[in-house]
């Protein structure tokens, strides 16, 4: 299989999604509402960072310029990151964190299931491993979305506000550019158009159960996966990359 720029770009996106959400979620460490959730969030962060390591290592090998996972994670600026905008948005509160995790993990479950059949066998192997983890993340977040949405007036209000805020960013999940078309044509990954209905079929019933109102689609568009990010990613990277920027090449 000859490596195409689209292939490298696609695997980088998957790695960046996992890395950036893993980093974001790790901010809860020591701050979550209860100890059990503190541990759960830290553990899910570790799962995502582990997935990011495998994916970025793979992307670096495909690229063939000798960049490893660390160089890709710590030495790229935000314009070179290809994560979904949803992953970089601030946590704000536990409600928004859980709604985001639910929207994202539900997508990941469907995506990893399809990537089991990827023509990229390394990616298929990573998918098999990540799928098992994503299912637990989706289950965990789904439980919380229902508890919060169908909970107290306060938790309902916050969960609904979180959904209203995050929902417009989910349109980006299914946006396609020539990279996505090349990926689908090469059998590396699924066509996003096929995933959108499947994702809504999973997500909407749970949101209904949570007594949350699914917002209408608006013309709002975000473009993180195409390299145009919100203001938040730079702040996240400045913290995540601090050590390598201050002491280039530091190892321990």
């Amino acid at each position, binding site marked *: 299989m000859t490596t195409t720029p689209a292939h490298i770009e696609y695997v980088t996106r998957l790695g960046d999604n996992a890395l950036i959400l*893993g980093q974001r979620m790790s901010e809860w460490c020591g701050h979550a509402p209860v100890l*059990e*959730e503190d*541990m*759960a969030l830290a*553990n*899910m*962060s*570790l*799962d*995502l*960072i*582990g*997935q990011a*390591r*495998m994916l970025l290592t793979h992307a670096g090998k495909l690229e063939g310029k000798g960049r490893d996972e660390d160089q890709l994670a710590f030495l790229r600026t935000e314009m070179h990151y290809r994560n979904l905008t949803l992953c970089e948005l601030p946590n704000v509160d536990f409600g928004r964190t859980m709604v985001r995790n639910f929207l994202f*993990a*539900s997508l990941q*479950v469907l995506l990893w299931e399809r990537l089991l059949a990827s023509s990229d*066998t*390394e990616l*298929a*192997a*990573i998918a*098999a*491993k*990540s799928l*098992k*983890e*994503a*299912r*637990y993340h*989706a*289950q*965990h977040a*789904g*439980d919380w979305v*229902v508890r919060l949405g169908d909970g107290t007036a306060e938790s309902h209000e916050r969960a609904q506000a979180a959904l209203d805020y995050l929902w417009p960013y989910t349109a980006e999940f299914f946006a396609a550019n020539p990279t996505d078309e090349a990926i689908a044509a090469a059998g590396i990954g699924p066509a996003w158009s096929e995933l959108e209905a499947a994702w809504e*079929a*999973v997500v909407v*019933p*749970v949101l209904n*159960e*949570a007594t949350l109102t699914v917002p209408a689609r608006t013309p709002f568009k975000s473009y993180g996966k195409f390299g145009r990010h919100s203001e938040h990613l730079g702040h996240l990277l400045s913290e995540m990359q601090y050590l390598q920027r201050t002491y280039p090449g530091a190892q321990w």
Partner: protein
Amino acid sequence: MLTETQAWDVLHAVPDPEIPVISVTELGIVREVHARDGGLHIVVTPTYSGCPATEVIAQSIRDALVAAGAGEVDVETRLAPAWTTAWITEPAKEKLRAYGIAPPSGDAAVGGAQPIRFVPRKLACPRCGSTDTTRLSQFGSTACKALYRCQSCLEPFEYFKPI
């Protein structure tokens, strides 16, 4: 130099760093052992992507084999097929229970639309055996375990989740 059989014997005694009552072979992560010129080639499949113990495990495998006179040992990490709790041996499940961790049982998480209808199976408390138990959190001290509490003996316990 060690034969493959001797190497397996050494590995049977290498404990998992997080759950030292079971060995890396009982956990099912050592997939293959090959003797070759001047040393050994070991194939290991990691449990969870983000498991912090993965590197410690590779190092302890290397150290144990080198100490037993294996020569040069290289440890290959293989992703596919993905590790599953079905690879944990039956005797190891009993050791887990005796150690206070409920061993994996039943099916893994299905995810998707089911989570809200999902009622966790009634697990037996590893201490008193009561099935009057309740899940406190999907994630315990490590990603591979969930946190439960026994309503009979009131002791908390961990459950090794099936994946």
